[in-house]
């Protein structure tokens, strides 16, 4: 197990440097001069430009710039944006908002997804099963922003049940955006639970457990469900990263000031340090969660360790 964990950890190193370098290079290649953009139409003294370019290493070639940046990141320094604000500060302000949003989305998709999948698998071929199948396909098909506006219009404006936008109302204002953000993943969880539970319910060990005289509830809950959760755990791990990416759109629709909005604004303003800083954090979060999932997976299923 330790060797397996070590190998997986080593595999992450090139992915980390590669992905951050790619984003850095993309931002580097954007047309326009970020320093001049900072001043808008106003004339700027050349000396100020050269001081700023010097300070942000803008005249170095790409590999050198990236090297300086990434060595800072490895020392825990995300640098500062072109207005002199610490990127770490921006992240610290925005991240809790997105975390709350993804937290609600996560709980929502886990609880409802499990329930829907369970019901569908236990009553295969029934009306409820078809309902789950059709509705999950429909939810997957509706783009998040269409779903968001529809939810805003119906639940927020027509019914007036939940706050429509912003985060002034505290926790309740996160509920609607959180549910919209988690809706697609909820559909995936439901289908995954349904498929793997339906397959496991036909397995020999389930017949054995039933033949031993265990109650239906115990057979399903202890024997079938546990084994069916392995693929669900995998999905949920990679899904954390997907949710944070999806937050870019959801936060835009619901006017939630999280990291998604911060990234979007920063790309528009060519604030390369902010974009690269947040993306780097997202990539790290994505990698760590997929690593944890892989390790859990290896614990749950010993066959993988010896691969």
């Amino acid at each position, binding site marked *: 197990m330790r060797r397996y964990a070590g190998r997986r950890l080593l*595999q992450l190193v*090139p*992915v980390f440097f*590669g*992905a951050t370098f*790619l*984003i850095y290079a*993309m*931002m580097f*290649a*954007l*047309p326009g001069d970020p320093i001049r953009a900072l001043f808008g139409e106003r004339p700027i003294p050349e000396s100020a430009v050269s001081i700023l370019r010097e300070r942000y290493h803008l005249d170095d070639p790409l590999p050198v710039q990236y090297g300086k940046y990434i060595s800072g990141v490895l020392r825990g320094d995300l640098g500062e944006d072109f207005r002199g604000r610490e990127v770490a500060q921006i992240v610290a302000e925005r991240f809790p908002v997105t975390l709350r949003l993804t937290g609600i989305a996560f709980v929502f998709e886990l609880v409802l997804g499990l329930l829907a999948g369970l019901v569908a698998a236990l009553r295969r071929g029934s009306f409820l099963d078809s309902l789950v199948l059709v509705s999950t*396909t*429909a939810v*997957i*098909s*509706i*783009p*998040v*922003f*269409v779903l968001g*506006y*529809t939810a*805003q*219009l119906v639940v927020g*404006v027509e019914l007036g049940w939940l706050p429509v936008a912003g985060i002034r109302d505290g926790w309740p204002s996160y509920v609607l955006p959180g549910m919209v953000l988690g809706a697609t993943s909820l559909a995936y969880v439901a289908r995954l639970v349904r498929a793997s539970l339906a397959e496991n319910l036909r397995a020999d060990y389930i017949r054995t457990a039933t033949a031993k005289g265990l109650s239906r509830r115990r057979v399903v809950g202890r024997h079938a469900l546990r084994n069916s959760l392995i693929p669900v755990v995998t999905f949920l791990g990679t899904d954390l*990263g*997907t949710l*944070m*990416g*999806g937050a*870019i*759109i959801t936060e*835009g629709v619901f006017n939630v000031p999280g990291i998604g909005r911060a*990234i*979007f604004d920063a*790309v*528009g303003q060519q604030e390369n340090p902010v*974009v690269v800083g947040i*993306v780097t954090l*997202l*990539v790290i979060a*994505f*990698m760590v969660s997929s690593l944890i999932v892989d390790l859990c997976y290896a614990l749950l299923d010993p066959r993988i360790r010896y691969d």
Partner: protein
Amino acid sequence: MTEANLARDAWLELRRNPKFLVSGVLILLIVVIAIAPQRFTSILPYDCSLSEHFLGRPSPGHPFGFDTLGCDYYTRVLYGARTSVSIGLLTVIGATLIAAVGGSISGYYGGVIDTVVTRVTDVWFAIPTILGGIVLLSALRRRGIGEVALVLTALGWPAMLRLMRSAVLSAAQADYVNAARALGAGDLRIMRRHILPNAIAPVVVYATIFVGIAISAEAALTFLGIGLQPPAISWGLQLEAAEDRLLTAPHLLLFPGLFLSATIFSFILMGDALRDAFDPKLR
């Protein structure tokens, strides 16, 4: 006697699947609309009258009403199909080509080539699609169908390549491949005649679903203001315009949203039906 093969079995299975029938009819309809929108409406998409029809509600002859420029919305929504379908198909063709070539070479030869291809794929895979799309598209001054499809291809191939690689990997170890090699078949022939036909099924399934994903991604990026630009006619642009008038003119959201979702739905459902048909375990 006819040859029994996977494609034939799959076809027999497909014909009886209601998912296939529903999605097939829908896709056919959307593609016909995309090819010849003028068959379904007598009005031209740029034939607009701001003074007469600004935000007009649905009325006889104009079932979807009018948009913010006084254009017939039904016509505009129909013409939007071509944009979405083109981007979806172009993206899938591009990503499938990269995946087929890269995945075959990587899975068949293994060794150093495989390690390099897998690592590069992992790196690209770690970049979230919408995020990468925002950054890449910001770099382009002119963003038409080709540019958006190119960016989506650049971000979409890793998932498909992984799929192709693992399919080739398992097909390459089969006995019939060894048999073909013992008979003196060259690498290219083995790959083309023996491995590809047996490894292509999961890729076809994912490619079908991916058409829907690409269409959805285009709409999302355009909606964010960094995808297609006017005067292009696209559901993403229509939804972006609907954003500001959500309360006063909800029909602006409803119709393109409906068409967009139905298009994505039909491709995802078709992928589902294909998966049912190609996966013998489910029979």
